């Protein structure tokens, strides 16, 4: 997107990456709405969805104001195609069973809390304010998802089997969280953004602690899936966007 680079502002790519993460996971979690067999947890996961979608709105609005040229939060969420989305692959994977959903939420909330806390200390006032607001929500997401990981991991034979299966499924997608992209390195150099590689040790230490409590074995850090930040996605993202964007694609400019 052609725009004059201003080193005092976050690059649109960086903001879109942060926003896409929140939107896509928010959308995935929202698939539980009305399907949780327990009313109370149905509401909990839907609350988390709404928090994440709210975070994505602030970030899209900020990105749109920097991008100009008629960009709006709606055009950024509804009118970009798969290759333009920069979210982590982890977040677009199908919601799976409850173990997959809560483990993914835990992995990401544990990452997000570190990322937001670091962002809060950075130079960009707007982004720092968005981070500050999001931290309060994220602390709760982390607490809630951690509880569930421990509860299922250290629960019955069945819950432990499911949680172990979820670990096997999701683990190879966690390495991508810490692989910095060009736009992250650029924003980190100007003291506006965070290089995610700097969050890695703390993230692993926290996860290790929770896994110990949950009687789960931490897999080794081996080969990892990646590509999301560069727009190279799994086949799942296209299906999410088809559902998410259908109305605006079929009836451009439609409002209700």
């Amino acid at each position: 997107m052609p725009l004059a680079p201003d080193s005092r502002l976050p690059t649109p790519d960086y903001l879109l990456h942060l926003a896409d993460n929140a939107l896509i996971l928010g959308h995935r979690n929202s698939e539980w709405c009305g399907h949780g067999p327990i009313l109370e947890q149905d509401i909990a996961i839907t609350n988390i969805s709404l928090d994440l979608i709210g975070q994505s709105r602030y970030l899209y609005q900020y990105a749109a104001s920097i991008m100009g040229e008629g960009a709006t939060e709606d055009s950024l969420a509804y009118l970009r195609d798969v290759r333009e989305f920069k979210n982590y692959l982890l977040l677009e994977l199908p919601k799976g069973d409850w173990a997959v959903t809560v483990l993914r939420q835990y992995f990401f909330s544990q990452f997000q809390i570190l990322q937001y806390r670091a962002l809060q200390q950075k130079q960009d006032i707007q982004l720092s304010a968005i981070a500050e607001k999001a931290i309060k929500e994220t602390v709760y997401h982390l607490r809630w998802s951690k509880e569930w990981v421990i509860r299922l991991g250290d629960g019955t034979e069945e819950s432990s089997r499911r949680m172990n299966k979820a670990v096997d499924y999701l683990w190879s997608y966690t390495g991508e969280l810490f692989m910095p992209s060009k736009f992250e390195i650029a924003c980190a150099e100007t003291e506006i953004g965070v290089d995610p590689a700097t969050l890695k040790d703390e993230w692993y230490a926290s996860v290790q602690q929770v896994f110990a409590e949950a009687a789960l074995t931490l897999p080794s850090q081996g080969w990892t899936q990646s590509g999301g930040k560069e727009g190279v996605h799994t086949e799942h993202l296209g299906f999410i966007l088809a559902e998410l964007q259908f109305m605006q694609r079929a009836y451009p400019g439609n409002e209700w």
Partner: protein
Amino acid sequence: MSFQSRKFFYGDIPDDGAGDSVNSQPSISENNWPLWEVFIRSKQGLDHKHAGSLHAADAQMAIENARDVYTRRMEGISIWVVESKYIHASNPDEAESFYEPANDKVYRHPTFYVLPEAVKNM
């Protein structure tokens, strides 16, 4: 004639191929999660008021569920939960003997005192 029973767990959607264990131990489901009563304090200085009830596996989860179910619109700053089975209630059938004897004991109200001028409300 015997039926193969397929077991579903929390989070399974019956038509997506989940629920693969057959006849294993009982699941933790809504059926055996205990009921909890929730009390919310809306602001400092006020009492906790009964807000409703919900299901949860333990106290920790009950408080978190209460936060999600009963404080979505800034209704509270403090939550108490207690398992419903620990609430002992008076028997509605005994209402007559319980409450009506108080009906004609007007002297229990402080209405026979002359209030000083300065006291506007009591």
